[in-house]
């Protein structure tokens, strides 16, 4: 019995030792510099080509999950909710020839995408929904990006528990993809506050963490290196890939 206990506790100690070794390898920023290089290869090889699959209404997931982050507690956002988003305004600025601000009626007037597509979470699950909204490309055509503009940055109303603001970014190729949209409706109804309403990004050719919810402001920039922690998005600042086609 003692012997068995000895074997078991030695095994547990060995495994705990393995855990420590593996974790310390992962904690090395030099190691991450090497392994993170795979993202560039993924971006070059997979890129943003083709079209996400279109589904039928019968494929729709009606009880759409929210993945924890429900309605933002931001005071400005709560005030907008009280007006049923009548006072919502979306400024699009930065490196553009013609900065513009859109209200919801103006966005709805531009609405041309209405597609049933799959929403792939980085965690591994997926849901299918009907998304209607404005092609991001048509907004860009209206504001006319300056030649030095390379990325479109989306700032959210939401913050995490530490107060960090959610944001994300796409390059101009991803932004101009015909299925990339500022979504206004989910499954036939205006997107509710839990699912990113009134306006959220929706890019079905990448993982869903790229689809910034509760969009408050759009800015075109030449580089995102000076925005927050410089990786191009809230999740990117926390280790996730900027290119999320895989």
């Amino acid at each position, binding site marked *: 019995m003692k012997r068995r206990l000895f074997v078991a506790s030695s095994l547990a100690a060995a*495994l*705990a030792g*393995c*855990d*420590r070794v*593996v*974790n310390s*390898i*992962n904690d090395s920023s030099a190691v*991450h510099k*090497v*392994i*993170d*290089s*795979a*993202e560039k*290869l*993924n971006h070059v090889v*997979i*890129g*943003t*080509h*083709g*079209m*996400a*699959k279109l589904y039928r209404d019968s*494929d729709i*997931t009606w009880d759409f999950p929210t993945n924890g982050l429900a309605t933002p507690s931001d005071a400005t956002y709560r005030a907008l909710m009280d007006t049923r988003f009548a006072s919502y305004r979306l400024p699009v600025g930065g490196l553009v020839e013609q900065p513009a601000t859109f209200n919801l009626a103006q966005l709805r007037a531009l609405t041309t995408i209405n597609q049933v597509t*799959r929403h*792939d*979470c*980085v*965690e*591994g*699950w*997926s*849901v*299918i929904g009907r998304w209607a909204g404005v092609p991001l490309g048509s907004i860009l055509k209206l504001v006319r990006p300056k030649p030095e503009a390379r990325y479109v940055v989306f700032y959210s109303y939401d913050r995490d528990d530490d107060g960090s603001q959610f944001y994300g970014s796409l390059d101009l190729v991803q932004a101009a993809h015909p299925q990339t949209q500022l979504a206004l409706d989910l499954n036939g109804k205006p997107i509710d506050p839990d699912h990113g309403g009134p306006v959220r990004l929706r890019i*079905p*050719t*990448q*993982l869903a963490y790229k689809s910034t919810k509760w969009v408050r402001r759009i800015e075109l920039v030449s580089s995102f290196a000076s925005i927050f922690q410089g990786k191009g998005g809230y*999740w990117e600042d*926390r*280790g*996730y*890939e900027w290119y*999320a*086609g*895989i």
Partner: protein
Amino acid sequence: MEGTANPRDLTAVPAEAPGRVVYRHTVVTRLTHWLMFVSLAVLLMSGLQIFNASPNLDASDKSDPAHRVLAIGDVQNSAGATVGTTEIFGHTFTTTGVLGYGDDGQGGQSARAFPGWLTFPAYQDLASGRRWHFFFAWVFVFCGAAYLLSSALRKDLALLILRPSDLPKMWPMQAYYFKLRKEPPNHGKYNPLQKAGYTGLLFILTPFVIVTGLALAPGIDAIAGPLTVLLGGRQFARSWHFLSMLLLTGFFFGHVFLVASTGVINNMRSMTLGTYRLGKHEGTGP
């Protein structure tokens, strides 16, 4: 044992020369073998790390509990303790300590599908798990391509591929291993069972594990939609990817068993330094 089509092949010596030391594995074979071993280990462990973020597998396109094939989770028992559970095709098993509840990778215990000692990194970190997985997926693919190319150029690959004429020799070879036969059936450099195993590994299982992983990616789905459809959809592809991981792991243990049972030091030497001491009836290894 038959001769060889390639006169430069040092491994092809008559079986009548036991004890002779030969040069068995080229530097490309040895280097890619060990790099792919490391890659597979990291791919397996980082893959389990990724799996932990959503520890369910469905046989459907979108997530659908009605088509669930595997679910690892945890429940509170009547005494208030957390119990790890694993549900396979609707049958639930208690798997506390290993699956559902166990090593959190930081010296403690927590609710977690696969335990810390099986994941890379050990603590729960999906972002890092993905980084490791994609980096070593590329290492694996490059090494696999280099091995196949070098093996094809040496005309060794052709000797490894299973052919219809090998099929009737498979049972006699197995019978020889079971000591039901004194002599192995007449065969070339690789025996019919080796050919079956490596042909399945190189041309069926490995392409399958790569393809099922790629089918999970929305960017790939947009380029190669029919691939994902063929596999039954994204969640189904995730289930196939998991199954192919199990098969590859099974192959690995079979491989290690054969390495160990046919002279572990001699085999390790040949795969590391290249030189191998021949025994009776052999010119090859596991």
